[in-house]
C-alpha cells in the first residue's frame, strides 16, 4: 500500500485553507481523526461510505468550494484521493 503523507495538494483556486477546513469536517463522517484521512483512505461499506455519507460530503463540497459534484461521480470514487481529483477537475472547468 502506498503513501501516508497526507492528501495531495490541489492546484489553482482550491486553496489549502479551504481544503484543510473541508478535510477537518469530512473526517467525522467516517468516525476518524483528521490525520487518518489520507488520500489512500478507502471508500467502501466498511468505512461508512453509504448514500448518507455521500450526501454529507456533497454538502461540505458546496460549503467550502461551491462546486456541485453528482452522487454518481462520488459513488465511483474508491478513495479520498479520487474525491480530491474530482474536486480539482471541477475547479478547472
Amino acid at each position: 500500500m502506498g503513501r501516508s503523507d497526507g492528501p495531495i495538494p490541489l492546484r489553482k483556486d482550491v486553496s489549502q485553507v479551504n481544503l484543510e477546513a473541508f478535510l477537518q469536517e469530512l473526517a467525522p463522517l467516517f468516525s476518524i481523526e483528521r490525520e487518518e484521512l489520507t488520500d489512500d483512505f478507502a471508500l467502501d461499506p466498511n468505512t461508512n461510505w453509504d448514500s448518507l455519507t455521500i450526501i454529507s460530503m456533497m454538502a461540505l463540497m458546496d460549503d467550502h468550494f461551491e462546486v456541485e459534484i453528482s452522487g454518481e461521480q462520488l459513488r465511483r470514487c474508491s478513495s479520498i484521493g479520487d474525491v480530491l481529483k474530482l474536486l480539482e477537475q471541477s475547479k478547472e472547468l
Partner: protein
Amino acid sequence: MAICSVSNVKIAGISAAIPEHFRSRVDDEAIFGKEVVAKIQQHSGVLSRPVTLSGLCASDLCFAAAERLLENLNWHRESIDALIFVTQTPDYVLPATSCVLQERLGLTKRCAAFDVNLGCSGYVYGLWLAGQILASSSMGRVLLLVGDTISRIVSPMDRAAAMLFGDAGSATALESTDDEAPMLFELGTDGRGRDRLIVPAGSFRRPHTDLTQRRTEREGGAMRSDEDLFMDGAEVFSFAIREVASLIKNVLSHADWSKESLDALILHQANEFILQHLAKRLGLPREKVPSTLENYGNTSSASIPLTMVVSLGERLKVSAQRLVLAGFGVGWSWGAVGLSCGPMSIEGPLVVQDEIIGKSEELRCD
C-alpha cells in the same frame, strides 16, 4: 420560466388534514434495528409521521380539509368557480379525482375541475394556476386541493423512503380582489431527473405484471418492487443545492425584498438535512425556515400548506406575512412564489379517522 406576476388574487384561507395514525421510531426499529433508525433520523429529522392504515386516499384528506375550510369561510358551494386537485396518488387512473371531489363537495355543474400530476412542486404550481385563472377571467373563487398518500407507494423495507414520508391533504381558498399585492412566481423543470424519484412500473410505460410487483433486494439492501417508489437521495440533494438557492434568490430580487424583510421561507419539507443546508446557503436564521419534519415527515405536495398551518397558523390568522414558498423535487420540477398573505382563515391539521371516510367512499362507489 421567467418571473411571472399575478395580481389581485387573495388567499382567503388554508386548512390541512392528516390520517389519525402515526408511525414512529418504535415501529421502525422493529424492521431496521436501532442503529439504522437513529442514523436515518438524524439526517431526515423525522421522528414520526401520519400514515393511513386502511387505504385512505389523498382525496379523502383533501375533502375533509375543504369541508372545514368552506364552513370556516362561510363560502357557499355555488360560489366556487373552479376546483384544482394536485396529487400523484389519485383515486383512479381515470376519471380525474377532481370530478369525484366536485360531486362529494356539492359544487355546482358550472364548476371547472381538473387534476394536476405534480408532487413536491405541486403546491406552488397550484397557486400559480389558481392565480392565473382568477386574474384572467371573470371567475371569482377557486378551491385548490393538494395532497398525497405516499406511504401507500413506499416499500416498508426500503430504509431510504419508508421512514421519511407521511400522508396529508390540504385545501386553499383563493378569490379575486381589487387591491392585493402581486404574487411573483418562478417555475422550472429538468426532466433529466425523471428516473431519480420514480415509481417505474404499474402505469402505461411499464404496465403491472407479476414481476413488477415482486420485491427484490436492491442497492444498499433495500427490498423494493418496481411498483414501489424509488428515491436516489444523493441526486435529490445534488438537484436541490443546484436549483433551489438561486430560485429563491431570484424571487427575492424580483420582489425587491431583502432577506431580513422576509417573515418566513416555507420550503417543501424534503428532509432536515436539505432544509438546514438551504437555510445556511441563503443566510437565513433557522427560525425563519420552519420545519414540520419531526412530527409529520415529508408529506410530498401537502408539505408547504401543512407547514403554513402548523408553524405559521397563529400569525397568519391575525396578521399579514411576507413569505416565499418553494417546492422542488420529483420531475425534477420546481417553483417558488413570493407573496404577502393574511390575515386569513387557517386551521389544522384536522385528524381524519381511517375507517369512516375510507369505507363510506368505497360504499358509495360500489
